[in-house]
């Protein structure tokens, strides 16, 4: 996190503009890790829309596959549960 700010280095009125995604990598909370079986994935998007973080998205480049940003995935398992064809596996973290 680096050095904490002095009182006169903070913005007045306890304002912030720093986004959580830039500093708070919640992927460390995870006990189980979702793994997508791309061979079966239909790109339906349910995992994308239901991820509460949100940390699944369609890749904008390439073939537009769905990708999980493990920096943020907390391993809730919703994507796996809601995937219509059950092509996501939850695997214990090491």
């Amino acid at each position, binding site marked *: 996190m680096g050095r904490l700010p002095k009182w006169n280095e903070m913005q007045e009125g306890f304002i912030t503009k720093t986004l959580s995604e830039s500093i708070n990598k*919640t992927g*460390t*909370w*995870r*006990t189980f890790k979702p793994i997508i079986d791309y061979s079966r994935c239909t790109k339906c998007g349910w995992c994308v829309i239901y991820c509460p973080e949100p940390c699944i998205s369609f890749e904008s480049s390439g073939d537009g596959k769905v990708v999980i940003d493990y920096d943020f995935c*907390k*391993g809730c398992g919703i994507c796996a549960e809601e995937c219509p064809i059950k092509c996501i596996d939850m695997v214990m*973290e*090491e």
Partner: protein
Amino acid sequence: MIEIRWHGRGGQGAVTATELLAKAAVKQGLNAQAFAMFGPERRGSPVVAFTRIDKEPIEVRSHIYEPDIVVTLDSTIINIVDISAGLKPRGTLVINSKSSPKELKESFPNFGIAAVDATSIALKRLGVPITNTVMLGALVKATKIVELSNVEKVVSERFNQINVEAVKEAFNETLMLEV
């Protein structure tokens, strides 16, 4: 005075662990103080708790910065938190891990190390990966700060015999390596 720091994750019962330890200490006539860094932490996020144990009444109320002992409840927490931070020279780490003390020693060369696969014991005995009572067994084995029988007593008062068995198993399974 002995000072202990606990590392776990929200939902794993670190607070209960420190409370039970303190209770066991009080049972044998010691003084104790059990507390945690409370916050709006949600399940899964790292949490820290503390125990102080002493013969004299305990007056100091600050956090513990230089513990004698550190206990980890979660097997993956060592990857994301600096668990040995501030640990006194020659202090003891009591770690929930599948790895042996020897393997762990590489990461923590300057401390005494006790290790037990608490998650497996918990899953086997309790059906859930909640390791707080289990790690009490390991802690007692490694440090003898309280008597095992007193831990068994407080655990059975709060939970049940199965938990007590888990404590015992952890006690027996814990492997140690001096500094």
